[in-house]
């Protein structure tokens, strides 16, 4: 850039610094209750200071409470029957064939698309379910499940910078199975590179909306939640230290803000300890609703004729409807309704050591609203804390434990905004996009599911 250009862009940014801007830091899987705890016990002093003049709220997310669905709710303000992301995997129309929904499967515009229509630039870093990176007015680095940095980067000119910063898409979760030391080291490494990239783009790019998301938190929680809970755990400090670093980043970002910039934080779900993993497909099989063509089916693709229902990860139950699936057996109408009610009753009765496993069974019309009702799961389950629902098809038991120690929660995500005057209600993740639009003075589409909190 020549000196004239530089002067010109300096002048421009000064003029535009009067314009409203929003910064949002995302912390994948970080519970509200954990942030409260870390503010109180001195682990996160920067955040504690910010919270004093902000609203930090416990937030609900839509179900299923997985990152792909939740973050899409976050960046569209819409529910899954509008945006089309019901989980990390889904079935192709009219078949039992699995596919992996991605940014191109999202049926509605993203927050940054809408801002782009108003000439506003966005920088979006590591938000899950944005891979492959689609063109936008701004820059975007895709989050989980991005596999190829080139396809995860827009515009392509950004790629050399990322290579220079040694940016990494994701830690290698495989390492958690090898050694917790190696895994922690990997998480710290990815975080450090992400932090540098966030600060670099924050300083170098022009934007109205800046979103930086940390997903290492979620990985840490999945494999090492036990280390948080148990103060004598050999990795307790390793876990807590990670949050000290996160707090460092929060401070570094907050210190950079000018008075026109609103600061927000959020997560896509909370976390709690796992007591048992629970396998819905085993339950369906065991109760005569589901049969597979082999003993160790790899997926629902191996469903056998005569099956009446099946589950997809983590809590989605589908009725094997005639006309909708190649081997559909259930008639729409009365038979469908009767079966749904019967399955719901059966699920509610599952217990573990006398405790009910399932908190609530929803019919799809209770939780979803939009043009994609037909492809929505027919029933959807919300479990009690401790019971991690899974869609595995090859399990021969209803419950067991694996390597994981933490599981997602639906009602304990967090939302923070650095102003006190916000709506007096429990926020929902769909509220964030309209809140940002309102803050930036952009018209909110009439069909968003959420409402602006300001």
């Amino acid at each position: 850039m020549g000196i004239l250009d530089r002067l010109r862009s300096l002048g421009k940014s000064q003029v535009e610094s009067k314009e409203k801007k929003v910064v949002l830091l995302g912390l994948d899987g970080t519970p509200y209750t954990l942030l409260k705890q870390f503010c109180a016990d001195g682990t996160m002093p920067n955040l504690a200071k910010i919270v004093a003049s902000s609203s930090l709220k416990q937030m609900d997310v839509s179900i299923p409470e997985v990152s792909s669905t939740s973050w899409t709710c976050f960046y569209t303000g819409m529910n899954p029957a509008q945006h089309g992301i019901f989980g990390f995997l889904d079935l192709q129309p009219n078949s039992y064939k699995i596919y992996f929904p991605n940014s191109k499967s999202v049926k509605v515009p993203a927050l940054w698309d809408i801002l782009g229509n108003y000439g506003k630039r966005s920088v979006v870093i590591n938000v899950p379910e944005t891979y492959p990176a689609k063109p936008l007015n701004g820059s975007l680095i895709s989050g989980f499940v991005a596999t190829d940095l080139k396809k995860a980067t827009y515009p392509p000119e950004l790629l050399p910078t990322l290579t220079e910063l040694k940016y990494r898409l994701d830690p290698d979760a495989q390492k958690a199975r090898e050694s917790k030391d190696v895994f922690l080291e990997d998480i710290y490494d990815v975080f450090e590179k992400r932090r540098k990239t966030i600060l670099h783009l924050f300083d170098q790019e022009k934007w109205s909306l800046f979103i930086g998301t940390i997903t290492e938190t979620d990985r840490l929680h999945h494999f090492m939640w036990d280390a948080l809970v148990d103060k004598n755990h050999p990795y307790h400090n390793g876990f807590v230290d990670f949050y000290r670093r996160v707090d460092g980043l929060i401070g570094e970002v907050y210190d950079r803000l000018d008075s026109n910039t609103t600061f927000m934080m959020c997560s896509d779900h909370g976390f709690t300890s796992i007591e048992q993993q629970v396998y819905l497909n085993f339950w369906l099989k065991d109760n005569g609703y589901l049969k597979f063509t082999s003993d160790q089916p790899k997926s629902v693709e191996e469903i056998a004729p005569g099956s009446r229902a099946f589950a997809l990860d983590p809590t989605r139950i589908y009725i094997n409807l005639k006309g909708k699936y190649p081997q559909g057996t259930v008639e729409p109408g009365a038979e469908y309704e009767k079966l749904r009610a019967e399955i719901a009753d059966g699920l509610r009765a599952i217990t573990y050591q006398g405790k009910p496993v399932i908190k609530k069974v929803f019919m799809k019309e209770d939780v979803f609203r939009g043009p994609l009702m037909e492809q929505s799961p027919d029933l959807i389950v919300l479990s009690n804390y401790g019971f991690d629902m899974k869609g595995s098809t090859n399990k021969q038991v209803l419950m067991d434990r694996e390597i994981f120690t933490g599981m997602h929660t639906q009602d304990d995500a967090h939302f923070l905004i650095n102003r006190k005057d916000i709506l007096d209600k429990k926020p929902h993740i769909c509220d964030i996009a309209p809140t940002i639009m309102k803050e930036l003075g952009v018209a909110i589409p009439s069909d968003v599911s959420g409402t602006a909190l300001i």
Partner: protein
Amino acid sequence: MSQKGFTLWFTGLSGAGKTTLAHIVEAEMRKHNLRVEILDGDVVRTNLSKGLGFSKEDRDTNIRRIGFVCHLLSRNGVAAISAAISPYREIRDEVRKTIGDFVEVYVHCPLEVCAQRDVKGLYAKAMAGEIPSFTGVSDPYEEPLNPEVVVDSSKETPEVSAKKILKKLEELGYLPKTEEVYSEEEEEEVKRRLEELGYF
């Protein structure tokens, strides 16, 4: 990429699925940021062709008008979609000749199935003799001889039919080819990473 205009012309009996498919295809095209306009027979008859009846002459006039507007739109880079019965082969071919960039979709569906669906309650009336010239019942329908796409809405779901149409449009270069997001190796990698976190 600058958009190449064309006309997507649905033809088929009432209740065969023209309107349904037109809207699915429209939504898909919009995802590619294409400009699209639907001319639906039922809508056109309330404005552009208001007052026209169902004689052969009036039907031809109606179709020529729709064809005329499709032509204007197409040559200005819009994807024009016509969803009208358009029962006469000769007029459809005439419109095809004028427009050039013309993709004909025959929405096949046996009369009995259309009558059973009776989306608008017209078949009941037609069969009771209350509607004098009703296509398929008391008025002719001429199937296209060489349509670019044939779908059978009595055997396929709307999504499957729409896919066929979209695929043809891709082949003909009116829609950008949908590249697979994940290569086979990448898909394995995605599976592996989901598996590691217990999602698969």
